[in-house]
């Protein structure tokens, strides 16, 4: 931190956390960092502004933003395979409430015609809230 200087022990820990979050977390070669084992893998850790967050499996996203569907290297290789599968993976296994209908209460049948996401994804119902 440049404008605030820590005085007590807690402030030094706080400053450390702030400075770490400001430092560029991604090295030139991401594989090196993974090998070094000194940092959790964080989704879409592309830009220096991204703070090191909690451990999230490769391929998931922590943000709600159309067009995010790239992995942390900017490609698609690290995403869920096949790509259609991640609808259900994210829906059931991850935290993705905003994009999918409420299957428990409001729309229990919205995926009824979709036995296999890869083949039937076009049959998924459109749900209007």
């Amino acid at each position: 931190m440049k404008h605030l200087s820590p005085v007590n022990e807690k402030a030094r820990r706080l400053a450390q956390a702030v400075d770490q979050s400001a430092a560029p977390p991604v090295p030139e070669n991401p594989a090196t960092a993974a090998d070094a084992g000194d940092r959790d893998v964080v989704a879409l850790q592309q830009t220096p502004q991204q703070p090191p967050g909690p451990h999230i499996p490769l391929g998931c996203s922590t943000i709600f933003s159309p067009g995010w569907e790239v992995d942390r290297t900017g490609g698609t290789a690290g995403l869920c395979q096949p790509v259609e599968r991640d609808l259900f993976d994210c829906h059931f296994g991850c935290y993705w409430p905003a994009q999918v209908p409420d299957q428990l209460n409001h729309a229990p049948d919205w995926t009824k015609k979709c036995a296999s996401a890869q083949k039937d994804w076009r049959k998924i119902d459109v749900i209007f809230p």
Partner: protein
Amino acid sequence: MSLLTSGDCHAFEAGGQRYLYLAPSAAVLAVDDLSGAVLDAVASGPQSRADLLAGLSGRYAESEVDECVGELLKVRAVSIAATPAPRTSPRILPLTPIPLSTMVLNVTSQCNLSCAYCYEYGEDKIVETANGRQPKWMSEDTARESIDFLLRESGSSAHLTFFGGETLLNFKVLRTAVPYAKAQAAALGKQIDFSLTTNATLLTDEMIEFLAEHRFGVTISIDGPKDLQNKFRVFHNGAGSYDMVAPKIKALIARHRSRPIGARVTLTRDTLDVRRIYDHLMNELGFHEVGFAPVTATPGRVHAFSEEGFEHVLAEFRDLARDYRDAAVAGRHHGFSNVRETLAEIHKGASKAWPCGAGFGLLGVSTGGDVALCHRFAGSDDHKLGTVRDGINRDAQRAFLDEHHIDRKTDCRTCWARPLCAGGCYHEAHTRHGSTVRPNLHYCEWVRGWTDTCLQIYGEIAQANPAFLREFDGASDEAPQPS
């Protein structure tokens, strides 16, 4: 457009430098001119980025202001208006079993003095001591069972504190309990140390020898020079105790050099002369430290504080605290322990979910072996957490911790002093407000005033003699002496 407002923090100034004390993190940060200007601006009302830049125009580059606001946002010294405030602190209970660090053993409920303000005997007492269910004296068996309990529940080290009534009335139990505790601790490979609180009236050479030999931390309850001591600290016939205790204290201090000996003063509405008390206890009697605590009493008792009383004491505390600062800057010892304790917590950045360790790290044991929140509640059925024989009732303990978490004290949510106060003493709350769950709203101004003073002193020492603060590094988990 998002607007910036003040965050959850307290701004203070010390030695010409501006500082921030953040809640709930309890971090102390020095503030530079630009961040000071930004803080001033948001303190005057919500500011958009454009407002800020306009206000600071010409003085700082735009990128610099953005960078500074970014830092202030990250440490939450400013926040974005209309975003919901984060919860004060998540209500996370410690993992159980929680190691017991201090056990306060009430070896007797009897006392040879009858101080009118005493919480054990006075009008505000919780436990029926005269004809109650609890025995008047702790037996040697119960003391041994208590020590087994302490060593069972403790981590690698344990503090055992003897308390009363007047502790030394039951010296017989101390004499057998201490060697037993040492032997048991050694067999288990644990550290144990001892302390006691006494009114000093019964001290004999033999006792002094015993206390020195076993390296007891000794706290003497005393109210100051003769006229003040004799006002409340009297025998049953009304005679003052000063002449009896003064020579005994001097003898104790002369012989027992292995651990510092402290005085613990109860301030009442009639004995508010902090500096005179301090000078007398330090210079005439030779104490190493003096700590002051306002009497715990329901309003209206003759000895209870008035509003002006609190203000007066705060002014006297501030005055004496400045002496502490001067001594610290010069690298000298000063015995005003209220400052030392607060500085240690500020230095560490303590941010408390509970006001003290009562109910988990510290437990009180009654004469009959009941385990309670602390010594002040020992023997009270309403505040019982088990017995030394059956152990701690974990369900009751968990319920207690959940119920008393700072997150439940809605009154405290916006207070910047909550990291250190956390609502204050349970016993005080019980006496003043009828329940341990209530925050002590009657002394909020006092706590904030005192914390602000200590923050200033901390800032001044950090500038003038930072080496002094190393004393507090990795601040000890030494148990505070119960009062």
